């Protein structure tokens, strides 16, 4: 019972966090738009381009992509091919979706761990981007790691709540 409450709280908090990440991701794109516009205007009127604007925007884009991927999953925004849905029975479909989710979760978890390790290496060895601005590379790496971690967790919630729970419920129903 306590475990169930804890799990509910966790799923709720994760959903709320991911929603905020969705806003943040959209905002990052909007900020990039403003920065690039400023860059164009400054270059056009003052003839003075910056040496950091484009690079900053790339990092904001990478951050935007990865931090919002868990939100996008929750909002069913990642497109998939679902024609098999109509060809298989309900039970077969449930098992297929469970396997598909496990596969995706495994991939995302693996990339997350790998990205955290890369972040640590970049931090330790002091990797920077090889531009005049020269920002530290662990920062974009960390956004990849954070995003994939959130995504793996979101998959976990989806597997438990949307796949396993109905199957277990269905099983009990069947025995009754």
């Amino acid at each position, binding site marked *: 019972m306590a475990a169930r409450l804890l799990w509910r709280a966790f799923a709720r908090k994760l959903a709320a966090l991911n929603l905020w990440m969705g806003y943040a991701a959209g905002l990052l794109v909007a900020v990039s738009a403003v920065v690039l516009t400023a860059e164009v205007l400054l*270059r056009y009127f003052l*003839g*003075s*381009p910056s*040496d950091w604007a*484009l*690079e900053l925007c790339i990092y904001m884009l990478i951050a935007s992509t990865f931090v919002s991927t868990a939100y996008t999953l929750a909002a069913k925004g990642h497109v998939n091919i679902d024609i098999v849905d109509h060809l298989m029975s309900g039970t077969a479909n449930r098992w297929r979706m469970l396997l598909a989710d496990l596969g995706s979760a495994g991939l995302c978890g693996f990339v997350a761990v790998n990205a955290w390790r890369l972040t640590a290496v970049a931090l330790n*060895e002091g*990797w*920077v*981007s*090889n*531009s*005049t601005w*020269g920002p530290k*590379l662990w920062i974009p790496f960390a956004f990849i790691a954070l995003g994939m971690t959130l995504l793996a967790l979101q998959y976990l919630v989806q597997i438990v709540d949307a796949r396993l729970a109905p199957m277990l419920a269905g099983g009990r129903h069947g025995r009754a």
Partner: protein
Amino acid sequence: AQAPKVLKISHQFPGGSIDEGDFRDRMVRKFAAEVEKRTNGQLKFEIYPASSLVKPVEQWGAMANGSLDLSLYPLAYAGGRVPELNIGLMPALVTSYEQGLRWKDAPIGKELVRIVEEKGVKILTWVWQAGGIASRGKPIVGPDDVKGLKFRGGSKEMDMMLKAAGASPTNVPSSEIYNAMQSGVLDAALTSSTSLISFRLHEHAKHVTTARDKTFWFMFEPILMSKASFDKLTPEQQKIVMEVGASLEKFGMESARADDQKLAEVYKQAGDAVHDMNEAAFAKWRDIARASAWKDFEEKVPNGKKLLEMAVSVK
């Protein structure tokens, strides 16, 4: 007989054949053919031109961890991870092809080899390439000519020197340089002679400054090999790989120099004015480079000052 071992070579330049096309691609193909011949086919190669396997900058990391075997690689690209390597594209540091090639046996060369091997990479062929400037508005020879120009320097150190000379370094991806030159997003672009030709900038430039006499742009782009892959070869194969690598240095130098000449011809043909950089202009550039890019290198890189001294001392 043993099954042949297949090694992967990647580079970012346009692909062609062993006899035609970009000399950097040809060099890699010559290397592959010669090693295959001398090892009686024990070593075979798959060549991936035009970044068709690994992105340009990341080739370094891929070699360091052994997922890529070889690359013809502008060493300064790895400068964000190994700051010492920025010396491979330091403005006005190398003054001629011959001097660049002499690094190999000088203390600076030994030190570079040590640094690179410590990161898991070996240098097989020493190649330098010179570059020039394509510009729209006015000819660019000395530093006074670049004031206020939107300039694509293409690397951190070059950008620093250009900025110190009063230009506005502008970041443009290489696929958009052509359009940027056409429309005036860029006033001038700086890159290797070979790329100045293959980017077809002569269609929009009015002037070109070649490297036939002097140039502040010399880039070190050796053939590199992953140490992990190298260590897996037999001693006999290792010897062949090193020898074939060294044997191509002359071809590299002659081809690079031929492209400096070809640059002038191509642009002249297109009706552009061709300029050369004289000793006096070069000296001015060198002063500016010293006060900007060199200074930054000395300050930011632990043994930067020593490395620069070693490089300058090569006669």
